[in-house]
């Protein structure tokens, strides 16, 4: 190895193809990785602070604005937490509708990430627009798949970004049975396109790189987890959502505007598609499991570069699941349950496309929010991302800086990080010392 490669800095000041603003800095000194920072410099927006004093029914629309890529995740975690505080459970057709709109968000977000943000790395393009110059039909397929997800969000939520139809207790207006059934045709096309997506991405070449993370996801008695469940891990964690804060600690580190989360006593953990998949393989639909097998994925995947295949499998699942629920839909009598406020603390946790999103609110008897706590998936994954980078770089010290930088960016994009969420993004720098 040339001596100048043993001591250098790899850095990216503004990471691309991620949501929000972040940077990367990796220092290599004397042939060892001495420092790795995923910097989140996106300015904070202080949601938890200004939620204080607002009404309990307002959190759904306000927290949605933390992230334009996963607004449904925020809306659902907020609604769940408020319903938990008030002692109300939403089930039946309203629960099904919540799952369907959430499937819409998974489809939109996963298709965006697989086709527009992540696949270009594997094929050596700087963007999907460049990729489309050589592979227009493929990019078109991705865009149409994304559109199918957005179609569900618009049908049930009124619009794709910050839907207006979700409320504590249910919805403002529920679709008629025939309105919802009409959504089935485009979804059947989308399910086939998702199966083709699994085949396409499974043929990419993946670096030989596995990590032994503790993975955390929701687990539900019968469903692949989306809107509810217990929190479980690959190292034996099994707790109710309300116990989250007893097991997860958040630290504030100087290089980041996002808080880092860790499991008390153990440290780094991973959330997101790989974790959901590993902990809930048996809950996937037969079609999605079959697609995973064909793609050569075992029931657990530990190579973060292969998360793109897992996302594609979840695309199949989300289309399949939405179709199943649409077929059995009968319009409920009322669009929402009454949820009268009471003085209490409520917890809500749902599976955002990028992993578990936890909300906790304390409200008073009139429903005014006294305290709010939000832990997004990307802040939970920050440590895992930094650890991946450290090991990945250590094993590839021979790479020239340009190639190293690009591959490190790709390693970050494995996580589909959402920096807007985590600051409520990141600067990537590799520094020469």
């Amino acid at each position, binding site marked *: 190895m040339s001596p100048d490669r043993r001591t250098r800095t790899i850095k990216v000041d*503004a*990471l*691309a*193809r*991620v*949501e*929000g*603003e972040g940077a990367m800095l990796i220092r290599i000194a004397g042939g060892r990785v001495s420092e790795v920072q995923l910097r989140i410099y*996106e*300015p*904070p*927006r*202080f*949601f*938890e*602070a*200004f939620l*204080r004093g607002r*009404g309990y029914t*307002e959190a759904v*629309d*306000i927290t949605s*604005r*933390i*992230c*334009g*890529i996963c*607004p449904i995740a925020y809306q659902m975690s907020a609604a769940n937490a408020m319903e938990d505080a008030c002692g109300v459970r939403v089930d039946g057709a309203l629960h099904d509708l919540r799952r369907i709109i959430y499937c819409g968000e998974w489809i939109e977000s996963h298709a*965006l990430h697989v086709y*527009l943000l992540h696949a270009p790395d594997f094929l050596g393009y*700087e*963007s*999907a*627009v*460049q990729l*489309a110059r050589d592979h*227009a039909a493929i990019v*078109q397929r991705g*865009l*149409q798949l*994304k*559109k199918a997800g*957005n179609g569900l969000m618009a049908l049930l939520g*009124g*619009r*794709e*970004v*910050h839907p*207006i*139809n979700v*409320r504590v207790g249910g919805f*403002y*207006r529920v679709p008629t049975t025939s309105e919802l059934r009409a959504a089935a045709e485009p979804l059947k096309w989308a399910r086939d396109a998702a199966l083709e997506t699994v085949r396409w991405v499974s043929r990419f070449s993946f670096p030989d790189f596995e990590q032994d993370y503790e993975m955390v996801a929701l687990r539900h008695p019968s469903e692949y987890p989306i809107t509810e469940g217990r929190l479980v891990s690959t190292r034996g964690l099994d707790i109710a959502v309300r116990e989250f804060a007893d097991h997860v600690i*958040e*630290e*504030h580190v*100087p290089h*980041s*505007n996002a808080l880092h989360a860790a499991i008390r006593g153990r440290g780094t953990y991973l959330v997101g598609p790989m974790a959901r998949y590993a902990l809930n393989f048996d809950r996937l639909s037969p079609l999605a499991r079959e697609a995973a097998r064909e793609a050569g994925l075992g029931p657990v995947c530990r190579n973060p570069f292969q998360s793109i295949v897992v996302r594609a499998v979840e695309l199949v699942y989300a289309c399949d699941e939405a179709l199943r629920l649409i077929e059995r839909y009968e319009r409920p009598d009322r669009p929402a349950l009454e949820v009268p406020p009471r003085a209490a603390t409520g917890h809500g946790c749902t599976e955002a496309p990028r992993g578990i999103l936890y909300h906790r609110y304390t409200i008073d008897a009139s429903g005014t929010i006294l305290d709010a706590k939000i832990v997004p998936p990307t802040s939970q994954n920050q440590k895992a991302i930094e650890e991946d980078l450290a090991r990945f770089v250590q094993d590839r010290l021979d790479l020239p800086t340009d190639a190293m930088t690009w591959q490190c960016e790709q390693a970050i994009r494995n996580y589909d990080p959402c920096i*807007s969420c985590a600051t409520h993004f990141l600067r990537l720098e590799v520094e020469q010392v």
Partner: protein
Amino acid sequence: MARAQRQKPRLAVWKFASCDGCQLTVLNLEDELLPLAGEVEIAHFLEASRATARGPYDLSLVEGSITTAHDAERIRQIRERSRFLVTIGACATAGGIQALRNFKDVKEFISIVYARPEYIATLDRSTPIADHVQVDFELRGCPIDRGQLLEVLTAFLHGRRPNIPAHSVCVECKRRGVVCVMVARGVPCLGPVTHAGCGALCPAHDRGCYGCFGPMETPNTASLSAWWRKLGVTDDGLVRAFRTFNANAPEFRKESERHEP
């Protein structure tokens, strides 16, 4: 090839404090995105591409509000390198939901969210782009409407003003034949004072408008507040209604201040 590339108008998309929802609306133009990429050179759009060009740019779309000294400087540089600059969304046009800090002490906010406040650099106010540089056109909404976005893109690429109506959501309800939620069901609605653009989405879903497109031109907010009072809304309720995603828009700010204790 290289020459043809240079002659295409150059589009840039920028982000400041925001949720990414407005720039996502560009990527949500699923049917139009590839044709658009044929007509313009996407010179800077970090969410979509790691390739960036320094400018100058023919059209800059700006999302997000200014909340740090560094960002205040960055927007000046972007303005210098842009022929036209259009703000997209409530954050860029009014300061966004993060402008709620403008009504409070930001130090208190920082300590509520972060254990080590000394690591955070931020300004005490969130301000719209037009407070810092000259803006050629402001597109409203939290988020922007994709139809309106296409109109803005088409208009600037063809050198004309965008045709974006300035009336209220109320007018859109009438056009769509949506029954007024306030008259028929007594549901408080900001539609009469809110800028059109969404197609009266909320009333069409049996809920009152919450003003995400911000104030229309010369809104009669006082008369609407009086009406809301008759529907049983308290002063505190009025303050909160006018203080959401466009809290810092002058007309909404003033109305909210009138109802403060």
